[in-house]
Protein backbone atom coordinates (compact mmCIF):
# COMPACT_ATOMS: atom_id res chain seq x y z
CA UNK A 1 0.00 0.00 0.00
CA UNK A 2 1.12 3.50 -0.86
CA UNK A 3 1.19 5.53 2.36
CA UNK A 4 2.55 8.98 1.63
CA UNK A 5 0.58 11.38 3.81
CA UNK A 6 1.17 12.41 7.41
CA UNK A 7 -2.37 11.52 8.33
CA UNK A 8 -1.74 7.96 7.17
CA UNK A 9 0.94 7.46 9.83
CA UNK A 10 -1.23 5.34 12.17
CA UNK A 11 -1.60 2.83 9.33
CA UNK A 12 2.08 3.05 8.39
CA UNK A 13 3.06 2.34 12.02
CA UNK A 14 0.90 -0.76 12.15
CA UNK A 15 2.22 -2.00 8.81
CA UNK A 16 5.76 -1.55 10.09
CA UNK A 17 4.90 -3.49 13.24
CA UNK A 18 3.44 -6.26 11.11
CA UNK A 19 6.58 -6.46 9.02
CA UNK A 20 8.75 -6.68 12.10
CA UNK A 21 6.66 -9.48 13.56
CA UNK A 22 6.84 -11.36 10.27
CA UNK A 23 10.63 -11.00 10.18
CA UNK A 24 10.96 -12.24 13.74
CA UNK A 25 8.73 -15.17 12.92
CA UNK A 26 10.86 -16.13 9.96
CA UNK A 27 14.10 -16.02 11.93
CA UNK A 28 12.99 -17.68 15.16
CA UNK A 29 10.40 -20.07 13.73
CA UNK A 30 7.99 -19.07 16.51
CA UNK A 31 4.31 -19.30 15.72
CA UNK A 32 3.03 -15.70 15.58
CA UNK A 33 0.05 -16.28 13.33
CA UNK A 34 -2.32 -15.06 16.05
CA UNK A 35 -0.43 -11.77 16.45
CA UNK A 36 -0.26 -11.32 12.69
CA UNK A 37 -3.97 -11.91 12.31
CA UNK A 38 -4.70 -9.47 15.09
CA UNK A 39 -2.47 -6.83 13.51
CA UNK A 40 -4.01 -7.32 10.09
CA UNK A 41 -7.46 -6.86 11.53
CA UNK A 42 -6.30 -3.78 13.34
CA UNK A 43 -4.86 -2.36 10.12
CA UNK A 44 -8.13 -2.91 8.30
CA UNK A 45 -10.10 -1.27 11.08
CA UNK A 46 -7.73 1.70 11.30
CA UNK A 47 -7.91 2.19 7.53
CA UNK A 48 -11.68 2.08 7.55
CA UNK A 49 -11.93 4.59 10.38
CA UNK A 50 -9.29 6.89 9.00
CA UNK A 51 -10.51 7.04 5.40
CA UNK A 52 -14.15 7.46 6.33
CA UNK A 53 -13.34 10.47 8.52
CA UNK A 54 -11.05 12.48 6.25
CA UNK A 55 -11.11 16.27 6.50
CA UNK A 56 -11.56 18.51 3.47
CA UNK A 57 -7.87 19.33 3.34
CA UNK A 58 -6.88 15.65 3.54
CA UNK A 59 -9.10 14.92 0.55
CA UNK A 60 -7.50 17.83 -1.32
CA UNK A 61 -4.13 16.19 -0.68
CA UNK A 62 -5.33 12.82 -1.97
CA UNK A 63 -6.83 14.48 -5.06
CA UNK A 64 -3.34 15.76 -5.89
CA UNK A 65 -1.49 12.49 -5.34
CA UNK A 66 0.99 12.19 -8.23
CA UNK A 67 0.16 8.53 -8.76
CA UNK A 68 -3.56 9.06 -9.24
CA UNK A 69 -4.57 8.12 -12.76
CA UNK A 70 -4.83 11.09 -15.13
CA UNK A 71 -7.14 11.60 -18.10
CA UNK A 72 -5.15 9.78 -20.79
CA UNK A 73 -4.67 6.76 -18.53
CA UNK A 74 -8.42 6.58 -18.03
CA UNK A 75 -9.14 6.87 -21.74
CA UNK A 76 -6.48 4.39 -22.82
CA UNK A 77 -7.56 1.83 -20.22
CA UNK A 78 -11.29 2.23 -20.83
CA UNK A 79 -11.31 2.29 -24.62
CA UNK A 80 -10.65 -0.50 -27.11
CA UNK A 81 -9.52 2.12 -29.57
CA UNK A 82 -8.61 5.79 -29.17
CA UNK A 83 -7.63 8.46 -31.67
CA UNK A 84 -6.31 11.66 -30.09
CA UNK A 85 -7.28 14.85 -31.91
CA UNK A 86 -5.19 17.99 -31.61
CA UNK A 87 -5.47 21.74 -32.00
CA UNK A 88 -8.03 24.52 -31.89
CA UNK A 89 -7.60 25.37 -35.61
CA UNK A 90 -6.69 28.96 -34.70
CA UNK A 91 -3.71 29.37 -32.41
CA UNK A 92 -2.21 26.03 -31.47
CA UNK A 93 -2.50 22.79 -29.58
CA UNK A 94 -2.86 23.09 -25.83
CA UNK A 95 -1.12 20.26 -24.01
CA UNK A 96 -3.09 20.77 -20.79
CA UNK A 97 -6.37 19.67 -22.39
CA UNK A 98 -6.50 16.49 -24.45
CA UNK A 99 -9.32 15.00 -26.44
CA UNK A 100 -10.31 12.51 -29.06
CA UNK A 101 -12.58 9.71 -30.16
CA UNK A 102 -12.68 6.42 -28.34
CA UNK A 103 -14.63 3.19 -28.51
CA UNK A 104 -16.14 2.31 -25.18
CA UNK A 105 -18.09 -0.89 -24.91
CA UNK A 106 -18.77 -0.77 -28.65
CA UNK A 107 -19.96 2.85 -28.59
CA UNK A 108 -18.09 5.86 -30.02
CA UNK A 109 -17.48 8.53 -27.37
CA UNK A 110 -15.79 11.94 -27.57
CA UNK A 111 -13.42 12.20 -24.61
CA UNK A 112 -12.08 15.54 -23.42
CA UNK A 113 -10.10 16.19 -20.28
CA UNK A 114 -7.39 18.09 -18.47
CA UNK A 115 -4.06 16.31 -18.57
CA UNK A 116 -1.39 16.52 -15.89
CA UNK A 117 2.11 15.07 -16.23
CA UNK A 118 3.46 12.14 -14.26
CA UNK A 119 7.05 13.43 -13.88
CA UNK A 120 8.74 16.83 -13.74
CA UNK A 121 9.37 16.99 -17.47
CA UNK A 122 5.83 15.96 -18.36
CA UNK A 123 4.33 18.21 -15.71
CA UNK A 124 5.99 21.17 -17.42
CA UNK A 125 4.96 19.90 -20.86
CA UNK A 126 1.36 19.69 -19.67
CA UNK A 127 1.62 23.06 -17.89
CA UNK A 128 0.50 21.32 -14.68
CA UNK A 129 -2.94 20.81 -16.17
CA UNK A 130 -3.54 24.57 -16.46
CA UNK A 131 -5.08 25.26 -19.84
CA UNK A 132 -4.79 28.30 -22.08
CA UNK A 133 -7.73 29.63 -24.12
CA UNK A 134 -6.83 27.36 -27.05
CA UNK A 135 -7.36 24.36 -24.77
CA UNK A 136 -10.95 25.37 -24.11
CA UNK A 137 -11.40 26.18 -27.80
CA UNK A 138 -10.03 22.77 -28.80
CA UNK A 139 -12.51 21.24 -26.38
CA UNK A 140 -15.34 23.22 -27.96
CA UNK A 141 -14.25 22.23 -31.47
CA UNK A 142 -14.35 18.57 -30.48
CA UNK A 143 -17.74 18.97 -28.78
CA UNK A 144 -19.19 20.59 -31.91
CA UNK A 145 -17.80 17.73 -33.97
CA UNK A 146 -19.38 15.25 -31.56
CA UNK A 147 -22.69 17.08 -31.91
CA UNK A 148 -22.48 16.93 -35.69
CA UNK A 149 -22.00 13.15 -35.69
CA UNK A 150 -24.30 12.46 -32.74
CA UNK A 151 -21.53 11.16 -30.50
CA UNK A 152 -21.88 11.59 -26.71
CA UNK A 153 -19.27 13.63 -24.83
CA UNK A 154 -17.44 12.60 -21.65
CA UNK A 155 -15.21 15.12 -19.89
CA UNK A 156 -12.61 14.29 -17.24
CA UNK A 157 -11.74 17.27 -15.05
CA UNK A 158 -8.47 17.63 -13.15
CA UNK A 159 -6.99 21.12 -13.00
CA UNK A 160 -5.55 23.53 -10.45
CA UNK A 161 -7.16 26.30 -12.54
CA UNK A 162 -7.07 27.99 -15.93
CA UNK A 163 -3.58 29.34 -16.64
CA UNK A 164 -3.15 32.92 -15.40
CA UNK A 165 -0.68 34.04 -18.06
CA UNK A 166 -0.12 37.12 -20.16
CA UNK A 167 -0.86 35.42 -23.48
CA UNK A 168 -3.87 33.70 -21.97
CA UNK A 169 -5.34 37.13 -21.25
CA UNK A 170 -4.42 38.43 -24.71
CA UNK A 171 -6.17 35.51 -26.34
CA UNK A 172 -9.27 35.83 -24.14
CA UNK A 173 -9.17 33.25 -21.36
CA UNK A 174 -12.43 34.62 -19.99
CA UNK A 175 -14.18 34.51 -23.36
CA UNK A 176 -12.98 30.96 -24.05
CA UNK A 177 -14.39 29.62 -20.77
CA UNK A 178 -17.61 31.64 -21.06
CA UNK A 179 -18.20 30.36 -24.59
CA UNK A 180 -17.87 26.75 -23.41
CA UNK A 181 -20.37 27.30 -20.59
CA UNK A 182 -22.92 28.64 -23.04
CA UNK A 183 -22.34 26.09 -25.78
CA UNK A 184 -22.24 23.11 -23.44
CA UNK A 185 -25.59 24.15 -21.95
CA UNK A 186 -27.29 23.60 -25.29
CA UNK A 187 -25.13 20.91 -26.92
CA UNK A 188 -27.46 18.42 -28.55
CA UNK A 189 -25.60 15.26 -27.49
CA UNK A 190 -25.39 13.84 -23.93
CA UNK A 191 -22.55 15.19 -21.79
CA UNK A 192 -21.10 13.41 -18.76
CA UNK A 193 -18.56 15.14 -16.52
CA UNK A 194 -16.27 13.56 -13.94
CA UNK A 195 -14.07 15.46 -11.50
CA UNK A 196 -11.21 12.95 -11.29
CA UNK A 197 -8.80 15.10 -9.28
CA UNK A 198 -8.83 18.83 -8.74
CA UNK A 199 -11.81 20.93 -9.76
CA UNK A 200 -10.54 24.46 -9.45
CA UNK A 201 -12.89 27.24 -10.39
CA UNK A 202 -13.58 28.44 -13.92
CA UNK A 203 -10.79 26.30 -15.30
CA UNK A 204 -12.72 23.20 -14.22
CA UNK A 205 -16.18 24.54 -14.99
CA UNK A 206 -15.06 25.27 -18.58
CA UNK A 207 -15.39 21.50 -19.18
CA UNK A 208 -17.99 20.96 -16.47
CA UNK A 209 -21.48 21.58 -17.86
CA UNK A 210 -23.15 18.20 -18.27
CA UNK A 211 -26.35 16.22 -17.97
CA UNK A 212 -24.67 14.41 -15.11
CA UNK A 213 -21.71 15.78 -13.15
CA UNK A 214 -19.91 13.35 -10.86
CA UNK A 215 -17.12 13.80 -8.38
CA UNK A 216 -14.81 10.96 -7.44
CA UNK A 217 -14.87 10.29 -3.71
CA UNK A 218 -11.60 12.00 -2.76
CA UNK A 219 -11.68 15.00 -5.07
CA UNK A 220 -12.52 18.66 -4.58
CA UNK A 221 -14.47 21.22 -6.58
CA UNK A 222 -14.83 24.90 -5.70
CA UNK A 223 -14.49 28.49 -6.74
CA UNK A 224 -10.93 28.75 -5.44
CA UNK A 225 -8.20 26.50 -4.04
CA UNK A 226 -7.97 26.36 -0.23
CA UNK A 227 -4.47 27.90 -0.38
CA UNK A 228 -5.58 30.93 -2.39
CA UNK A 229 -8.71 31.29 -0.27
CA UNK A 230 -6.57 31.29 2.85
CA UNK A 231 -4.21 33.88 1.44
CA UNK A 232 -7.06 36.20 0.46
CA UNK A 233 -9.07 35.89 3.66
CA UNK A 234 -6.29 35.54 6.22
CA UNK A 235 -3.32 36.90 4.22
CA UNK A 236 -1.37 33.68 4.68
CA UNK A 237 -1.31 30.12 3.32
CA UNK A 238 -1.29 28.71 6.86
CA UNK A 239 -5.05 28.53 7.14
CA UNK A 240 -5.59 26.18 4.21
CA UNK A 241 -7.18 23.49 6.43
CA UNK A 242 -9.65 26.03 7.75
CA UNK A 243 -10.29 27.36 4.24
CA UNK A 244 -10.86 23.82 2.94
CA UNK A 245 -13.50 23.29 5.62
CA UNK A 246 -15.15 26.65 5.03
CA UNK A 247 -15.38 26.16 1.27
CA UNK A 248 -17.31 22.85 1.64
CA UNK A 249 -15.44 21.54 -1.35
CA UNK A 250 -15.67 17.77 -0.86
CA UNK A 251 -17.81 15.47 -2.98
CA UNK A 252 -20.06 14.82 0.02
CA UNK A 253 -20.73 18.53 0.60
CA UNK A 254 -21.19 19.25 -3.08
CA UNK A 255 -23.79 16.49 -3.37
CA UNK A 256 -25.57 17.67 -0.24
CA UNK A 257 -25.77 21.17 -1.72
CA UNK A 258 -27.13 19.72 -4.98
CA UNK A 259 -24.27 21.15 -7.01
CA UNK A 260 -23.28 17.75 -8.45
CA UNK A 261 -25.32 14.69 -9.39
CA UNK A 262 -23.40 11.91 -7.73
CA UNK A 263 -20.25 10.51 -6.16
CA UNK A 264 -18.12 7.76 -7.67
CA UNK A 265 -16.71 5.52 -4.97
CA UNK A 266 -12.94 5.14 -4.95
CA UNK A 267 -10.83 2.25 -3.63
CA UNK A 268 -10.11 2.67 0.08
CA UNK A 269 -7.49 5.42 0.49
CA UNK A 270 -7.84 6.80 -3.04
CA UNK A 271 -7.59 5.95 -6.73
CA UNK A 272 -3.80 5.74 -6.62
CA UNK A 273 -4.04 2.64 -4.37
CA UNK A 274 -5.76 0.73 -7.15
CA UNK A 275 -5.97 2.54 -10.51
CA UNK A 276 -7.50 -0.44 -12.32
CA UNK A 277 -10.49 -0.51 -10.00
CA UNK A 278 -11.18 3.22 -10.07
CA UNK A 279 -10.96 3.33 -13.87
CA UNK A 280 -13.30 0.33 -14.11
CA UNK A 281 -15.81 2.02 -11.77
CA UNK A 282 -15.81 5.20 -13.86
CA UNK A 283 -16.19 3.14 -17.03
CA UNK A 284 -19.24 1.34 -15.67
CA UNK A 285 -20.78 4.62 -14.61
CA UNK A 286 -20.29 6.03 -18.13
CA UNK A 287 -21.84 2.97 -19.78
CA UNK A 288 -24.81 3.04 -17.40
CA UNK A 289 -25.47 6.76 -17.76
CA UNK A 290 -25.03 6.99 -21.52
CA UNK A 291 -27.59 4.23 -21.86
CA UNK A 292 -30.09 6.27 -19.88
CA UNK A 293 -29.28 9.64 -21.43
CA UNK A 294 -29.36 8.45 -25.03
CA UNK A 295 -32.97 7.31 -24.50
CA UNK A 296 -34.08 10.89 -23.72
CA UNK A 297 -35.39 13.24 -26.38
CA UNK A 298 -32.82 15.91 -27.32
CA UNK A 299 -34.92 18.94 -26.35
CA UNK A 300 -35.93 17.34 -23.08
CA UNK A 301 -32.33 16.52 -22.25
CA UNK A 302 -31.23 20.12 -22.92
CA UNK A 303 -34.15 21.55 -20.95
CA UNK A 304 -33.30 19.31 -18.00
CA UNK A 305 -29.65 20.36 -18.16
CA UNK A 306 -30.52 24.08 -18.18
CA UNK A 307 -33.11 23.64 -15.43
CA UNK A 308 -30.60 21.83 -13.24
CA UNK A 309 -28.03 24.63 -13.40
CA UNK A 310 -30.71 27.31 -13.16
CA UNK A 311 -31.84 25.88 -9.83
CA UNK A 312 -28.38 26.29 -8.25
CA UNK A 313 -28.05 29.00 -5.63
CA UNK A 314 -29.67 29.95 -2.35
CA UNK A 315 -31.70 33.15 -2.20
CA UNK A 316 -34.27 34.43 0.24
CA UNK A 317 -37.28 36.50 -0.79
CA UNK A 318 -37.48 39.22 1.82
Amino acid at each position, binding site marked *: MNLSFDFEKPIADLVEQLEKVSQVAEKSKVDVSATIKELEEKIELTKKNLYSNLTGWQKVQISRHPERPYTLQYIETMCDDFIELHGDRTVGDDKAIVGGLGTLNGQTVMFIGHQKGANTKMRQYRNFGMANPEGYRKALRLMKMAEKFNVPVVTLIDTPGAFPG*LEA*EERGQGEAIARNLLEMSVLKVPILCFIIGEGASGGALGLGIGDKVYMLEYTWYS*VISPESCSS*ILWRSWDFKERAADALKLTAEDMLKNKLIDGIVKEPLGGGHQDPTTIIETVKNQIIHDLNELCKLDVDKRIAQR*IDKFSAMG*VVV*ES
Partner: protein
Amino acid sequence: MAWFKRNKEGILTTTEEKLDVPEGLWNKCPSCKKPLYAPDLESHQYVCQHCNYHLRIGSHEYFQILFDDNQYEELFANLISGDPLQFEDTKKYPDRLKETMKKTGLNDALKSAHGKINGSDLVICCMDFNFIGGSMGSVVGEKISRSIDYCIKHRYPFMIISKSGGARMMEAAFSLMQMAKTSAKLALLSQHKLPYISLCTDPTTGGVTASYAMLGDIIIAEPGAMIGFAGPRVIKETIKKDLPKGFQTAEFVQEHGFLDFIVDRKDMKAKLSSFIKMMMK
Protein backbone atom coordinates in the same frame (compact mmCIF):
# COMPACT_ATOMS: atom_id res chain seq x y z
CA MET B 1 8.56 97.98 1.46
CA ALA B 2 5.63 95.60 2.02
CA TRP B 3 2.09 96.84 1.59
CA PHE B 4 0.86 94.99 4.63
CA LYS B 5 2.56 94.41 7.91
CA ARG B 6 1.88 91.37 10.03
CA ASN B 7 1.11 92.45 13.55
CA LYS B 8 1.30 89.08 15.23
CA GLU B 9 3.25 85.96 14.20
CA GLY B 10 1.43 82.71 13.24
CA ILE B 11 -2.10 81.77 12.23
CA LEU B 12 -4.47 82.70 15.00
CA THR B 13 -7.91 81.77 13.58
CA THR B 14 -9.50 79.08 15.73
CA THR B 15 -10.73 75.89 14.05
CA GLU B 16 -14.36 76.83 14.67
CA GLU B 17 -13.99 80.15 12.90
CA LYS B 18 -12.27 78.74 9.81
CA LEU B 19 -14.24 79.08 6.59
CA ASP B 20 -14.40 75.47 5.44
CA VAL B 21 -15.56 74.06 2.14
CA PRO B 22 -18.51 71.75 2.91
CA GLU B 23 -17.64 68.06 2.96
CA GLY B 24 -17.95 66.40 -0.45
CA LEU B 25 -18.23 69.57 -2.50
CA TRP B 26 -14.92 69.00 -4.17
CA ASN B 27 -13.45 65.65 -5.20
CA LYS B 28 -10.13 64.78 -6.72
CA CYS B 29 -9.98 62.90 -10.01
CA PRO B 30 -8.25 59.59 -9.20
CA SER B 31 -6.47 59.71 -12.54
CA CYS B 32 -5.28 63.28 -13.21
CA LYS B 33 -5.61 64.42 -9.57
CA LYS B 34 -7.28 67.66 -10.64
CA PRO B 35 -10.19 68.95 -8.56
CA LEU B 36 -13.71 68.02 -9.54
CA TYR B 37 -16.68 70.12 -8.47
CA ALA B 38 -19.22 67.62 -7.14
CA PRO B 39 -22.45 69.38 -8.24
CA ASP B 40 -21.15 69.33 -11.82
CA LEU B 41 -20.37 65.61 -11.80
CA GLU B 42 -23.94 64.48 -12.36
CA SER B 43 -24.39 66.62 -15.46
CA HIS B 44 -21.08 65.29 -16.78
CA GLN B 45 -22.15 61.66 -16.18
CA TYR B 46 -19.46 61.33 -13.51
CA VAL B 47 -16.64 61.77 -16.00
CA CYS B 48 -13.63 63.99 -15.27
CA GLN B 49 -13.82 67.07 -17.47
CA HIS B 50 -10.04 67.38 -17.49
CA CYS B 51 -8.90 63.89 -18.52
CA ASN B 52 -12.10 61.98 -19.47
CA TYR B 53 -11.53 59.53 -16.61
CA HIS B 54 -14.75 57.60 -16.02
CA LEU B 55 -15.37 57.54 -12.29
CA ARG B 56 -16.77 54.35 -10.79
CA ILE B 57 -20.51 54.68 -10.36
CA GLY B 58 -23.30 52.32 -9.33
CA SER B 59 -26.64 51.08 -10.61
CA HIS B 60 -28.47 54.17 -9.37
CA GLU B 61 -26.32 56.44 -11.56
CA TYR B 62 -26.33 54.15 -14.61
CA PHE B 63 -30.13 53.89 -14.54
CA GLN B 64 -30.28 57.69 -14.26
CA ILE B 65 -27.95 58.11 -17.23
CA LEU B 66 -29.63 55.53 -19.47
CA PHE B 67 -33.37 55.39 -18.75
CA ASP B 68 -35.62 58.12 -20.18
CA ASP B 69 -36.49 60.72 -17.52
CA ASN B 70 -34.97 58.41 -14.91
CA GLN B 71 -38.19 56.35 -15.10
CA TYR B 72 -37.82 52.62 -14.54
CA GLU B 73 -39.31 49.73 -12.66
CA GLU B 74 -36.95 47.78 -10.48
CA LEU B 75 -37.36 44.00 -10.84
CA PHE B 76 -36.88 41.25 -8.25
CA ALA B 77 -35.67 43.79 -5.71
CA ASN B 78 -36.67 41.64 -2.75
CA LEU B 79 -34.06 38.91 -3.32
CA ILE B 80 -31.36 38.63 -0.67
CA SER B 81 -28.65 36.09 -0.11
CA GLY B 82 -28.91 33.03 2.11
CA ASP B 83 -25.97 31.49 3.93
CA PRO B 84 -25.94 27.90 2.70
CA LEU B 85 -22.37 27.21 3.82
CA GLN B 86 -22.39 28.98 7.20
CA PHE B 87 -19.30 30.72 5.93
CA GLU B 88 -17.14 32.53 8.43
CA ASP B 89 -13.85 34.31 7.87
CA THR B 90 -13.09 37.40 9.89
CA LYS B 91 -16.86 37.88 10.12
CA LYS B 92 -19.87 35.64 9.75
CA TYR B 93 -21.26 35.94 6.23
CA PRO B 94 -24.80 37.00 7.31
CA ASP B 95 -23.25 39.72 9.51
CA ARG B 96 -21.13 40.91 6.61
CA LEU B 97 -24.23 41.01 4.40
CA LYS B 98 -26.26 42.93 6.96
CA GLU B 99 -23.48 45.44 7.49
CA THR B 100 -22.98 45.98 3.76
CA MET B 101 -26.70 46.39 3.18
CA LYS B 102 -26.86 49.03 5.88
CA LYS B 103 -23.78 50.83 4.58
CA THR B 104 -24.72 50.83 0.89
CA GLY B 105 -28.52 50.78 1.02
CA LEU B 106 -28.37 47.94 -1.52
CA ASN B 107 -29.72 44.39 -1.20
CA ASP B 108 -26.93 42.77 -3.21
CA ALA B 109 -24.33 43.46 -5.90
CA LEU B 110 -26.79 43.71 -8.78
CA LYS B 111 -29.99 45.60 -9.55
CA SER B 112 -32.35 44.74 -12.35
CA ALA B 113 -34.69 47.26 -13.94
CA HIS B 114 -36.99 47.67 -16.92
CA GLY B 115 -37.37 51.05 -18.58
CA LYS B 116 -37.10 52.82 -21.90
CA ILE B 117 -34.07 54.30 -23.56
CA ASN B 118 -34.96 56.87 -26.21
CA GLY B 119 -38.33 55.18 -26.41
CA SER B 120 -37.14 51.57 -26.74
CA ASP B 121 -37.77 48.99 -24.05
CA LEU B 122 -34.70 47.58 -22.33
CA VAL B 123 -34.05 45.44 -19.26
CA ILE B 124 -30.76 46.30 -17.57
CA CYS B 125 -29.00 44.31 -14.87
CA CYS B 126 -26.37 46.57 -13.35
CA MET B 127 -23.73 45.55 -10.84
CA ASP B 128 -22.70 47.59 -7.81
CA PHE B 129 -19.04 47.43 -6.86
CA ASN B 130 -19.73 48.83 -3.38
CA PHE B 131 -21.45 45.62 -2.41
CA ILE B 132 -18.61 43.21 -1.40
CA GLY B 133 -16.53 44.18 -4.43
CA GLY B 134 -19.40 43.59 -6.84
CA SER B 135 -18.96 39.91 -6.22
CA MET B 136 -21.19 37.41 -7.95
CA GLY B 137 -23.20 35.21 -5.62
CA SER B 138 -26.57 33.46 -5.73
CA VAL B 139 -28.58 36.70 -5.80
CA VAL B 140 -26.67 38.10 -8.76
CA GLY B 141 -27.19 34.82 -10.64
CA GLU B 142 -30.86 34.55 -9.74
CA LYS B 143 -31.65 38.16 -10.70
CA ILE B 144 -29.95 37.71 -14.07
CA SER B 145 -31.76 34.41 -14.57
CA ARG B 146 -35.17 35.90 -13.76
CA SER B 147 -34.49 39.01 -15.84
CA ILE B 148 -33.76 36.79 -18.85
CA ASP B 149 -37.04 34.94 -18.31
CA TYR B 150 -38.75 38.35 -18.13
CA CYS B 151 -37.10 39.44 -21.41
CA ILE B 152 -38.14 36.22 -23.14
CA LYS B 153 -41.73 36.60 -21.91
CA HIS B 154 -42.05 40.22 -23.04
CA ARG B 155 -39.61 40.06 -25.96
CA TYR B 156 -37.34 42.80 -24.62
CA PRO B 157 -33.64 43.20 -25.37
CA PHE B 158 -31.31 42.63 -22.44
CA MET B 159 -28.22 44.35 -21.09
CA ILE B 160 -25.81 43.61 -18.25
CA ILE B 161 -23.48 46.28 -16.90
CA SER B 162 -20.61 44.36 -15.31
CA LYS B 163 -18.50 45.80 -12.52
CA SER B 164 -17.08 43.06 -10.39
CA GLY B 165 -14.09 41.57 -8.67
CA GLY B 166 -15.37 38.11 -9.64
CA ALA B 167 -17.02 35.30 -7.74
CA ARG B 168 -18.12 35.72 -4.10
CA MET B 169 -15.85 33.53 -2.06
CA MET B 170 -18.29 33.31 0.84
CA GLU B 171 -20.65 31.37 -1.38
CA ALA B 172 -17.85 29.12 -2.71
CA ALA B 173 -19.17 26.55 -5.21
CA PHE B 174 -22.62 28.16 -5.23
CA SER B 175 -20.96 31.25 -6.59
CA LEU B 176 -19.00 29.23 -9.17
CA MET B 177 -22.23 27.67 -10.41
CA GLN B 178 -23.72 31.12 -11.06
CA MET B 179 -21.35 31.24 -14.03
CA ALA B 180 -22.97 28.08 -15.37
CA LYS B 181 -26.46 29.28 -14.51
CA THR B 182 -26.21 32.70 -16.18
CA SER B 183 -24.48 31.28 -19.27
CA ALA B 184 -27.15 28.59 -19.69
CA LYS B 185 -29.85 31.24 -19.41
CA LEU B 186 -28.10 33.45 -21.96
CA ALA B 187 -28.09 30.46 -24.31
CA LEU B 188 -31.89 30.39 -23.95
CA LEU B 189 -32.14 34.13 -24.61
CA SER B 190 -30.01 33.63 -27.70
CA GLN B 191 -32.33 30.86 -28.96
CA HIS B 192 -35.19 33.37 -28.68
CA LYS B 193 -33.21 35.75 -30.91
CA LEU B 194 -33.25 38.59 -28.42
CA PRO B 195 -30.20 40.86 -28.40
CA TYR B 196 -27.94 40.87 -25.38
CA ILE B 197 -25.56 43.77 -24.77
CA SER B 198 -22.69 43.31 -22.36
CA LEU B 199 -21.13 46.52 -21.05
CA CYS B 200 -17.86 46.02 -19.20
CA THR B 201 -17.00 48.80 -16.76
CA ASP B 202 -14.11 49.24 -14.39
CA PRO B 203 -13.37 46.56 -13.20
CA THR B 204 -14.72 43.44 -14.93
CA THR B 205 -12.75 40.43 -13.77
CA GLY B 206 -12.69 36.77 -12.76
CA GLY B 207 -15.80 34.64 -12.99
CA VAL B 208 -17.86 37.52 -14.37
CA THR B 209 -15.48 37.88 -17.32
CA ALA B 210 -15.53 34.10 -17.76
CA SER B 211 -19.30 34.06 -18.07
CA TYR B 212 -21.89 36.73 -18.92
CA ALA B 213 -19.52 39.66 -19.52
CA MET B 214 -17.97 37.88 -22.52
CA LEU B 215 -21.17 36.45 -23.99
CA GLY B 216 -22.83 39.55 -25.44
CA ASP B 217 -24.06 39.77 -29.01
CA ILE B 218 -22.09 42.93 -28.66
CA ILE B 219 -19.52 43.41 -25.92
CA ILE B 220 -18.65 47.03 -25.22
CA ALA B 221 -16.72 48.91 -22.55
CA GLU B 222 -16.10 52.29 -21.01
CA PRO B 223 -12.72 53.90 -21.75
CA GLY B 224 -9.90 52.74 -19.53
CA ALA B 225 -11.94 50.03 -17.80
CA MET B 226 -9.91 47.14 -16.39
CA ILE B 227 -11.13 43.94 -18.03
CA GLY B 228 -9.53 40.54 -17.52
CA PHE B 229 -9.87 37.01 -16.22
CA ALA B 230 -6.92 36.57 -13.86
CA GLY B 231 -5.81 39.40 -11.61
CA PRO B 232 -2.66 41.32 -12.65
CA ARG B 233 -0.84 40.41 -9.41
CA VAL B 234 -1.43 36.69 -9.96
CA ILE B 235 -0.26 36.92 -13.57
CA LYS B 236 2.84 38.83 -12.54
CA GLU B 237 3.69 36.21 -9.94
CA THR B 238 3.09 33.39 -12.43
CA ILE B 239 5.16 34.70 -15.33
CA LYS B 240 7.70 36.49 -13.11
CA LYS B 241 7.85 39.46 -15.47
CA ASP B 242 6.45 42.97 -15.36
CA LEU B 243 3.24 43.47 -17.25
CA PRO B 244 3.17 45.82 -20.25
CA LYS B 245 1.66 49.25 -19.79
CA GLY B 246 -2.04 49.34 -20.48
CA PHE B 247 -2.37 45.56 -19.97
CA GLN B 248 -6.01 44.50 -19.38
CA THR B 249 -7.45 47.92 -20.18
CA ALA B 250 -10.52 48.21 -22.40
CA GLU B 251 -8.26 49.52 -25.18
CA PHE B 252 -5.97 46.47 -24.83
CA VAL B 253 -8.93 44.09 -24.86
CA GLN B 254 -10.39 45.77 -27.94
CA GLU B 255 -7.03 45.59 -29.70
CA HIS B 256 -7.03 41.83 -29.12
CA GLY B 257 -10.47 41.47 -30.65
CA PHE B 258 -12.77 40.96 -27.69
CA LEU B 259 -14.71 44.25 -27.69
CA ASP B 260 -17.00 45.63 -30.37
CA PHE B 261 -16.36 49.21 -29.33
CA ILE B 262 -15.44 51.48 -26.47
CA VAL B 263 -17.96 54.16 -25.71
CA ASP B 264 -17.80 57.35 -23.66
CA ARG B 265 -20.52 57.61 -21.05
CA LYS B 266 -21.91 60.75 -22.65
CA ASP B 267 -22.48 58.93 -25.97
CA MET B 268 -23.62 55.67 -24.46
CA LYS B 269 -27.38 56.19 -24.44
CA ALA B 270 -27.56 57.37 -28.04
CA LYS B 271 -25.36 54.54 -29.30
CA LEU B 272 -27.20 51.87 -27.34
CA SER B 273 -30.61 53.03 -28.44
CA SER B 274 -29.64 53.10 -32.10
CA PHE B 275 -28.25 49.55 -31.76
CA ILE B 276 -31.50 48.40 -30.15
CA LYS B 277 -33.60 50.11 -32.83
CA MET B 278 -31.61 48.35 -35.57
CA MET B 279 -31.89 44.95 -33.87
CA MET B 280 -35.52 45.07 -32.75
CA LYS B 281 -37.03 46.08 -36.10
